[in-house]
């Protein structure tokens, strides 16, 4: 029993509700959300250290022992993602203070962001399948509100699609949970794992597994990503950064958790499907990233390509690949947030989303230019930076498991992504100065400071890989051996 485990969920939830009372007082809103986001970072660092010292931490809600009650489980994998989430959301909040505009702030913007964070934290920490569904819905309903807030024509159109697709996938989620409950008779993930292992993962269980794969792929943008590029282009940059960094990753986390903890008995079937989906996602994401000439679409397709890459690591499913997955997941959350935030500054300074109408930003804002350049290199995986280690481990793991073609695709993908990022860099920063717009934000200084903080973390994650490695390896232990998770939850 450790009540700390619920705090990452509780802090943003409480903050979100408090902010409803102050929705007209912008200064108070900013102070409360700033302080609470820093408190979240502090708490999640604490949780990571505690899990490192004392192993998996669990919390039985209301004192009911699992499998009867809801249990919150902080293993190293979940805690690392919670930490990354809190860092990313703190950065996005501080970025929003200067960029989002008083109109949106007055209409509960910060409340929605905190509800979104609460949903994400809950999804990472919960050890109960239906509670995972509820946390997904908390996150999604907040994201519906954030995507439509402002009410421009484009936002309204994309919101309609986004909500429709997510309602369909949530309905499928409930159906899948119902099938699984009928087949296994429990919803606690650890207990599910025991039951599935006892009964054997036969035909019905595999069908349910594939249904879950479809559900979470719709949420994560793995192959079924057709809704994603449009939706991520509509809202303001900081909202797109939150989406790109958090929402798809929650779907991925759910896939990884389900297929390492519960449905790991038939890898010949399920993991092969994941492998194919990952390959298709990488190809289509890479093509999309070089095909378009506007910043938001290029970045959205980069998100998709990253999702495909992580899923490939899961399909390979050996120790090297799973360590790579954890590494790359943390890196991807940070770097996607960073790129969307920098992209937001670029679009605001240039006054347009179209690459052809930009140019020469480097003379006006050299710092921004070089920061974008370094983060582009980090995303693609140039050695001293953070993308490298995860990518190397996944490629190595893929080769060990005999996925030669998919490994080839993933390496070719890095080239395509590099091309797409340099496309933005060369068009926006080099060349003649084109004053397409005067820029919405006059002084992006705080925005640059926030992005620089993220960039430093990204560099640290690459250079300081030696320090991060024990944590990642502890996280991979649980993914490789479901028994560790089951023992922590069920035997106390």
């Amino acid at each position, binding site marked *: *029993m450790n*009540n700390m485990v*619920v705090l990452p969920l*509780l802090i943003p*939830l*409480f903050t979100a*509700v*408090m902010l*409803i*009372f102050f929705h007209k007082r912008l200064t108070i809103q900013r102070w409360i959300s700033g302080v609470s986001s820093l408190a979240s970072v502090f708490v999640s660092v604490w949780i990571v250290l505690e899990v490192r010292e004392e192993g998996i931490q669990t*919390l*039985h*809600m*209301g*004192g009911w022992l699992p499998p009867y009650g809801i249990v919150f489980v902080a293993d190293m994998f979940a805690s690392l993602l919670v930490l990354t989430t809190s860092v990313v959301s703190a950065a996005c909040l501080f970025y929003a203070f200067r960029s989002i505009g008083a109109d949106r702030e007055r209409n509960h913007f910060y409340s929605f962001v905190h509800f979104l964070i609460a949903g994400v934290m809950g999804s990472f920490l919960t050890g109960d399948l239906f509670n995972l569904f509820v946390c997904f819905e908390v996150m999604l309903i907040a994201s519906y509100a954030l995507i439509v807030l402002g009410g421009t024509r484009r936002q309204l159109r994309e919101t309609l699609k986004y909500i429709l697709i997510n309602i369909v996938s949530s309905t499928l989620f409930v159906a899948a949970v119902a099938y699984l409950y009928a087949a296994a008779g429990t919803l606690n993930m650890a207990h599910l794992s025991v039951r599935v292992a006892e009964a054997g993962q036969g035909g019905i269980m595999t069908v349910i597994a594939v249904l879950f794969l479809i559900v979470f792929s719709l949420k994560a943008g793995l192959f079924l990503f057709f809704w994603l590029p449009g939706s991520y282009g509509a809202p303001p940059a900081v909202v797109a950064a939150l989406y790109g960094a958090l929402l798809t990753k929650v779907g991925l986390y759910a896939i990884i958790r389900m297929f390492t903890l519960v449905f790991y008995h038939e890898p010949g079937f399920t993991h092969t499907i994941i492998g194919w989906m990952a390959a298709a996602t990488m190809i289509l994401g890479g093509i999309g990233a070089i095909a378009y000439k506007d910043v938001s679409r290029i970045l959205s397709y980069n998100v998709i390509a990253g999702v495909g890459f992580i899923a490939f690591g899961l399909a390979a499913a050996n120790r090297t690949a799973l360590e790579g997955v954890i590494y790359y997941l943390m890196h991807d959350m940070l770097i996607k947030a960073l790129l969307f935030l920098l992209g937001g500054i670029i679009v605001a300074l240039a006054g347009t989303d179209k690459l052809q109408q930009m140019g020469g930003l480097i003379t006006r804002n050299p710092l921004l230019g070089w920061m974008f350049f370094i983060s582009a290199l980090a995303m693609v995986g140039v050695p001293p930076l953070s993308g490298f280690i995860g990518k190397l481990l996944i490629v190595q793991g893929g080769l060990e498991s005999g996925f030669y073609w998919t490994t080839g695709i993933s390496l070719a993908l890095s080239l395509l992504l590099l091309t797409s990022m340099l496309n933005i860099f060369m068009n926006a920063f080099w060349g003649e100065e084109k004053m397409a717009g005067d820029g919405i934000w006059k002084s992006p200084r705080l925005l640059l400071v926030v992005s620089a903080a993220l960039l430093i973390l990204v560099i640290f994650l690459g250079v300081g890989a030696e320090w991060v490695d024990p944590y990642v390896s502890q996280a991979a232990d649980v993914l490789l051996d479901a028994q560790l998770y089951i023992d922590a939850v069920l035997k106390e």
Partner: protein
Amino acid sequence: MKFTDVFLQTATKTLVFIIMTFSIYILFAGHHNPGGGFIGGLITASALVLLYIAFDLQSVRDIIPFNFNKLAAAGVIISVLTGTASLLFNVPFLSQTFTYVYLPLLGKTELASAVIFDLGVYMTVLGTTMTIITSISEDEK
């Protein structure tokens, strides 16, 4: 066009009290019988909606000067705090407790902390429903 429906308004004046009483009964019955915060909140909301139908928006607002938006938020805070209170006693989050007390008139009564959680749910449901209904009916642009 403004019209006055005497039958509707007179019936409403009686019915609203019956519905309100029933909703409170349902709210407190939830622990041992069908009912609870969610359905209680909806029934109270239906009483208020009946008022809105029988009278106009402004006169209902004069007699019930609540900000329903904030009522919903207060409800969530109450529910979250009942969970958080268990942190102070060093028991797991959302732990509940109950006790029997002898109240005048009611006699031996069971007081459970789950009722406070339910009260939060009740306020949230009421606040959310009324926020939706009033903001749709106010939108005239």
